């Protein structure tokens, strides 16, 4: 099967890739780029573990074909930490004990990042709406909400 040429900017780095026409963005990220922080939990867009940011939007990368997002700018969990240290969201997730098994964490962080990028002072209800597509079976969500609230405050400060 003919491969397609695509160009993606992932975590600030440009990649020229050859992808199959049916290749999911999730597979490109995990298997071609070896960025395994993005997780596969259900493959049908229900659990949110594979959430990444494509051009400022949080998307389920299992539901997107890579060819569809040619030329896009993508952020994965690996792109959050910078030379100046952890992102305020990462710090807050650690501080508020918002992590248990950690499998939903990358997706949660990405959905929260997309929220704060567009709405730096979200209400509790807005946080819930932004994270509604991300399932977590360990934490009961409370400490995740606490973390997003803390990050919003830190970020705004």
């Amino acid at each position, binding site marked *: 099967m003919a491969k397609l040429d695509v160009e993606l900017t992932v975590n600030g780095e440009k990649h020229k890739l050859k992808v199959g026409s049916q290749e999911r963005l999730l597979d490109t990220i995990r298997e071609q780029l070896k960025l395994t922080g993005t997780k596969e939990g*259900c493959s049908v867009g229900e659990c949110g573990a594979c959430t990444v940011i494509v051009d400022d939007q949080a998307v389920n990368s299992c539901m997107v074909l890579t060819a569809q997002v040619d030329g896009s700018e993508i952020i994965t969990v690996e792109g959050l930490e910078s030379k100046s240290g952890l992102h305020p969201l990462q710090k807050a997730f650690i501080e508020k004990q918002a992590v248990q098994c950690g499998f939903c964490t990358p997706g949660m962080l990405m959905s929260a990042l997309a929220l704060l990028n567009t709405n730096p002072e979200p209400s509790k209800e807005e946080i819930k709406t932004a994270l509604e597509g991300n399932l977590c*079976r360990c934490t009961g969500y409370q400490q995740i909400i606490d973390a997003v609230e803390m990050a919003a405050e830190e970020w705004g400060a």
Partner: protein
Amino acid sequence: MAFKHVNKGVKRVDAYEKVTGKAKFGADLEFANMLYAKVLRTEYPHAKILKIETSEAEKMPGVKGVFTAKDIPNNLFGVIVQDQQVLAEDKVVLAGDGVAMVVAESEAEAAAALEKIEVDYEELEGVFDPLEARKEGALKLHPEKEDNQVIHHPLRKGDVEKGFAEADVVLEREYTTQFIEHSYLEPEAVVVVPNEDNHLVSVYGSIQNPYATRNAVSAVLEVELADVRVIQNHIGGSFGGKDEVVSAMAARAAVMAIATGRPVKMVNSREESFTESYKRHPYHLTYKIGATKEGKLTAMEIEAVADSGGYACQTPFVTWRSVVQATGPYEVENVKTDTYGYYTNNPYTGAMRGYGSPQVIFAQESLMDELAGELGLEPVELRKRNMYSQGSVTASGQKLDRHTVSLNEVMDKAMEAIDYKNKYEEYSKEQSGDKKKGIGLSISFRGCSLGAEAIDAAASVIQINKDGSVAVYSGLAENGQGLKTIFSQMAAEVLGIPMSEVEFKELDTSFTPDSGSTVASRATLIGGNAVKDAAEKLKQRIMTFAQDKYELDAEVMELKDGFLYDGQGNRLATFADLTGEMGNTGILMSAYGWYKSPPISWDEEKGCGNPYFTYVYGCQIAEVEVDTGTGELSVINMAAAHDVGRAINPENVKGQIYGGVMMGLGYGIMEELELRDGVIQGTNFHDYMIPTIKDMPDIKPVIVENPDPDGPFGAKSIGEPTLELGSAAIANAVAHASGKRIRSLPLNLERVLIGRALHKGGK
């Protein structure tokens, strides 16, 4: 006692790798020359296998091997009863049984080859209800067994006939509970590497219980335990679920890794996970209870019938916990309890957080509210007149006097947290409109750790490096619950060093001693004691050395903040210099820790003894709003008060409470694995709904601390108690709001509105 690290909400030691995506889970692993494997599973719940034709599959591109039962050295495994097949040989007993497997250069090639395998079946009648399976002459699942009974646990105390004769009120009620999917976010994954570091096979992956998996793999391969090395990776949730199903997966991958001489990776899709994994046991419960008009319980007669599905798996132990806790935390003179498990052609059932308690608590705590109603007593009052207090004797004849019996305290604190009394009074009045509010509670006692199921002991190893950094190893496994952090806190506390000096190491069965399984909320209690033991041995060694070196009494000196102090506030040495010097003089700077639980006992014939050496107590209260016009149920507030002995990490304890309450909410009001003749209808999260962030009530966690003499720093358990109480509290709140008593879980729209499930045969 003032603690430095223990009893503090210190940050998780594994959080950094988890928030940066660096943490490697089973599916993230890659090895050079790795192959991928897939399993062909049957769609029939009960069928004879007449023929498996693999020749076409073998010719498919990339295929390195096709395997059936005949290729498995020992095809039977199981923790308690060895009745589970790695691959079905002559017969399948549940839809989802593996019949063949393919290993290939890629996952896609393995999947394509699976479709070329032809299996001829002869369909058999099935039995899908344990109440049918128990009948005389019922179709037998396992021909070599006498009947379909997996287990029967009796318990007899006093004389129930006499007790019922003394009662003014006798109630008989039936309750049912449902199949539940664990719904860990990470589907199962393993990689088996052959001939690595002198081991026949190394097993990596999302493994809840590395020793159980090692036992299974070595039994299946018919090799020594020492030939099999299991290394646990980060595990994306388990809740009791990644035990037998992962052991089977590891055994299959091991067979293929040995056959090909190459690493073999297996990762389940969500659909495969739903199809193959074991579930929470559904129960059919019959309760008869007698009480005097003053509200004193005189007798309870209980029968609990559990659906074991196709295999015995953990049913004998799950139903044993039920028999111990079936009366709830109440003094009853006369008790007759029988719990049973039966084989059916349904998915098999095993360990899931709670383990035989959520089912009986739903029934028995619903029943207490029903009885209170009959007697004209408030639910709290009926409980207070009968519940355990210090020195009470349980149904099995155990006197509760080794620890603090804190039911009164947990109940009062939960009531205070949610303003129970005012709300109960307000919602008991006539409410206008369709939307009605109610409040309900439930209480429990829960035996900590394994109890009389098995020998209950655990090990740890602590090693002090020459620079004063400390490595901690445990035979129990991090499952996401926070064990690495808890154990690191304990080691730092005893050795008087900063948390940053402690490094918790991954579990590797080739190094750490077998400590049994990380189950039964036993890690903090049993494993914690083992960590404390190792740390204390090293501390004693350090203090003996210091006593000679500084000619000061070891009792006076103190290890604190990474220094040795003379007891007068003066620093004598850094921890690093002192321990480094000890190492250089040839003193062993590592120690094994070991802890074995205090004696317990159980008479299986009579159902009496001291089944657990300590217990925890909890109370949860739910406040709900029921739309009596539509059946819509909103859980608005929940309070959860749990006595944990001592909270080693209060923030972690809160995390366990929030998570357990939400899992209990799912169990109570929304989750149900729908089966049609043994076949799961819907194998992903769009069919099987678990609570989202939008389903959250406002949860008020209340930590109650009564240090236990046998717990490390007084700590006991928290993981499982948090989810066993919610469903009954919610059912009681719904009855309070609407006047409707629902005796089947979950309390979904149709049950709340019309009182039964809409699907065929729905209760």
